[in-house]
């Protein structure tokens, strides 16, 4: 397989790799990682839970150039992956790096796949100015919509051993239309609360509903932090009220915050706050760290953010906030 070698300083080389078999996947990823390590590059490998040990046993996984992340837990919310990649690039600023990920797999929900494609559209922006090679592995058993979304968001594709420019690639952070539609209405039975100054009340409301719906105390605390950040943003960044709506569906607790503000930065929520730049407005980053899935739609008419928490899941923190080397 032609190796997607490190590109120039201007834009990352970003390829979608389509595979049919486990062996094909493993070989391609190992080749890509090993090429990077041999060239002295830092490599971030974000693989699904089952694939991590398969890869680690074939690589010197204690190599200091390798960093590992688990896509099924830490990567459950795609924007969290975007911020991890940014963090990784900053930690190795100016040095060539590689990133290989499994953004999609057949058992992911439609909402997750949508967010994964949206995240792909942002990768080039997130890594702008970094000499980086990015390989994204897609199982050909995925639905046609996701495969198409991958083709639209990657300048290059690799398939059956051949690398080619992607004819349907839409440059410049264009999110494929079918991953950019409105989120749809809450179902009957959803409960809602409008808020503005009553910040304590909106947090309490979210906490009570989540606990009743079976979310653990710890994860309810996480949800309350996320709701608090978003509700606080309504007060800080808009002059109108917001609405919190909550319901349960498909074994998940869904918490929707809607207000009249607009988020204009496509990379909003992907930059970790730090002591040198504590600046307000980092709440969105925290939200993405704490929730299993975050879906955002924003425009001149306002912003809608849906938080999903699955009671059966454990918290992903600190997963992607501190990348670990093994």
């Amino acid at each position, binding site marked *: 397989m032609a190796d997607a070698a490190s590109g120039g300083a201007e834009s990352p080389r970003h390829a979608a790799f389509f595979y049919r078999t486990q062996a094909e996947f493993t070989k391609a990823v190992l080749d890509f990682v090993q090429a990077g390590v041999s060239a002295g590059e830092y490599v971030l490998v974000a693989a699904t839970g089952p694939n991590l040990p398969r890869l680690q046993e074939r690589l010197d996984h204690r190599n200091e150039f390798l960093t590992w992340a688990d896509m099924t837990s830490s990567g459950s919310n795609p924007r969290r992956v975007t911020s991890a990649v940014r963090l990784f690039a900053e930690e190795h600023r100016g040095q060539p790096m590689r990133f290989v990920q499994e953004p999609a797999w057949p058992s992911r929900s439609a909402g997750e796949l949508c967010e994964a494609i949206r995240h792909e559209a942002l990768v080039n922006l997130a890594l702008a100015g970094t000499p980086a090679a990015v390989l994204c592995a897609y199982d050909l058993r995925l639905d046609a919509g996701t495969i198409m979304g991958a083709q639209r968001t990657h300048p290059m594709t690799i398939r059956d051993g051949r690398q080619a420019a992607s004819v349907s690639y839409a440059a410049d952070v264009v999110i494929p239309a079918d991953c950019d539609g409105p989120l749809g209405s809450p179902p009957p039975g959803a409960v809602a609360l409008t808020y503005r*100054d009553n*910040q*304590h009340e909106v*947090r309490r409301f979210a906490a009570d509903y989540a606990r009743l719906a079976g979310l653990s105390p*710890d994860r309810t*605390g*996480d949800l*309350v*932090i996320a709701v*608090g*950040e978003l509700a*606080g943003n309504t*007060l*800080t960044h808009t002059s109108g009220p917001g609405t919190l709506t909550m319901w349960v569906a498909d074994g998940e607790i869904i918490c929707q915050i809607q207000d009249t503000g607009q988020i204009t930065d496509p990379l909003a929520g992907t930059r*970790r*706050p*730090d*002591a040198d730049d*504590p*600046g*307000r407005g*980092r*709440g969105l*980053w*925290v939200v993405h*760290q*704490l929730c299993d899935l975050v879906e955002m739609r924003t425009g001149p008419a306002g912003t809608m953010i849906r938080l999903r928490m699955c009671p059966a899941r454990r918290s992903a*923190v*600190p997963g992607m*906030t*501190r990348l670990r080397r093994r």
Partner: protein
Amino acid sequence: MRGNIAVLGRYPGVQVDDLRLSSKSQGGFVIVAVGGELDVVTGRQFDEYLEQARSDHKRVILDLSAVDFMDTGSLAVIVGHWKQLTAAGGTLVLAGARYRYTKTLWITGLAERLPLYDTVEEALAANSGAGGIPEAGGSAAEGIKSA
């Protein structure tokens, strides 16, 4: 916003919505105790209170043991005061922050940048006798105690 002023120490304590603020001098420090929830609504009062506490103290212990909620805005307030105090040769340390209620400190990694102690007593013990700047306008009895 209701104001419920109670004099609990050197500065008037204030209660706004779900926030309680008080302060006292000890061991050459001003200990600012915060209780309740730090959010966008209560954060402004918190910021002003810290500003006031800092105006004639260069060594501050922020006692967060009774804080039940803290958002990134309030964290930014703390970091802002910490940076200003440190730049002026002073000290600001955090004591008693409970992970469950102030998790944002850890998620953001700031818990490793800011000086954190489990208790006010530990904060005092760790920072005593360093020879700080005497409080402006303070009485002799409130001057810096040496270790």
